[in-house]
């Protein structure tokens, strides 16, 4: 086989391999658990809105990820039976400084006290806020094994090895009714999944979408919960 033909074959093989990696939707398996505790009835009238906030007590060792909060809010505000959801940064600015880490109510009993402030009560009524959803929790890597080595030489590069890791998402949403100043329920969403990355020349990541799965589950369950269907 001529050198030029050999080079063309090698290039074609590389292209095919890279294409396969990009096109194949490789995803690991995720196990989800969702639990709900209802303490009071819920319902949403037209014009009512909801906000999803991350708990940011300080100093904190496990602050909820910003993209998880926005993911849950996006799920609530999208799809069928969408709920009017105020984005967290917009809410924090509109109610500044009453939901900052230094001033945010620690429990639902503090809400009636906050509502004593005329300016705050007027703003909450203006935006039609009915429910506050506090999200606590985070995603942690709980286990990691294997090894993967990559090297680059003048003639090219490549990786060899096998990596595996387990991610564990654990989140809890507490729902407060702003009008009654009471906690109306809690929903927890847990997800566990193992990701793999085998590598023979090219690494092929098989990622378990643990956090996005926990977000989808929590968002879907919150939507059902807030509309009072269960």
């Amino acid at each position, binding site marked *: 086989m001529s050198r030029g033909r050999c080079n063309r074959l090698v290039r074609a093989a590389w292209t095919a391999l890279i294409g396969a990696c990009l096109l194949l939707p490789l995803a690991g398996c995720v196990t989800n658990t969702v639990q709900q505790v209802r303490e009071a009835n819920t319902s949403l009238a037209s014009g009512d809105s909801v906000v999803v906030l991350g708990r940011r007590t300080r100093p904190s060792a496990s602050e909820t990820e910003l993209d998880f909060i926005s993911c849950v809010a996006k799920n609530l505000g999208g799809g069928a039976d969408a709920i009017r959801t105020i984005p967290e940064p917009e809410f924090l600015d509109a*109610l500044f*400084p009453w939901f900052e*880490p*230094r001033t945010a109510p620690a429990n639902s009993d503090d809400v009636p006290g906050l509502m004593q402030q005329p*300016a705050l009560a007027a703003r909450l009524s203006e935006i039609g806020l009915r429910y506050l959803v506090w999200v606590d929790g985070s995603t942690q890597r709980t286990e990691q094994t294997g090894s993967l080595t990559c090297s680059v030489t003048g003639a090219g590069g490549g990786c060899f090895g096998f990596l595996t890791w387990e991610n564990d998402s654990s989140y809890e949403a507490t729902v407060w009714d702003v009008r009654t100043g009471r906690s109306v329920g809690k929903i927890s969403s847990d997800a566990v999944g193992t990701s793999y990355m085998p590598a023979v020349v090219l690494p092929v990541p098989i990622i378990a979408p643990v956090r996005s799965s926990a977000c989808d589950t929590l968002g879907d369950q919150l939507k059902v919960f807030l509309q009072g269907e269960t």
Partner: protein
Amino acid sequence: MSSPTGSRWHRNSATPTLYRHGRRFGLAIMVLAGLAGCGATRVSVPATFPAPLVDKLPLHVGVRLDEALTSYKLHDKPEQGTEIEIEVGAAQTALFSTLLNGMFTQSSVVTEAATGVDAVLVPSIQELQFSTPEITKTDYFEVWIRYRMQLYRPDNTLIAEWPLTAYGQANARNYSMQGDQPALQAAALAACRDAMTFFIVQFRTIPAVEAWLRDPTAAAGAPPA
């Protein structure tokens, strides 16, 4: 996509030198990119703050911002990690203007000789500290700003003086693909927002301020807090 020089990067017998140069150029780019990651982290706080949602006090309060405050920056090289520069001074005018505008029916930025105001606030930054995940072995960038607040009557007698320590943190995991800069900036911005929050919460509870608020026209005489 083609370019006039695009063919230079292909290996062929006619252009071996160009190919070698191309490889060296690529290597140099990689080395430079690596070095860029080792450079200093410089952040400045964006000068945009939300208006406080509080019941306004019926007073005209001025704020005097000296150059030491409006040009305040910290430049430090911690034992662990790279050089860090945090510039908070440029945001102080917006911070205090927004704060006082939200707290009082009238507010203005004043110079040394202030007339037509009920009081003049003179803030200053005593110290700024930070920590990074490399230092604390946590996921957080943290920023502390220690202010000193002084409130004067228009005749330049002191009404009250008090310290205010603001704190901000940002989880590095929220910015994991963007380097240190946005996380450190978020922590510095959070500290500035906390300074506003703490000022609002604390202001009416300071005994000397409380006494002055009961009778803003009373002459000096009471000792400062």
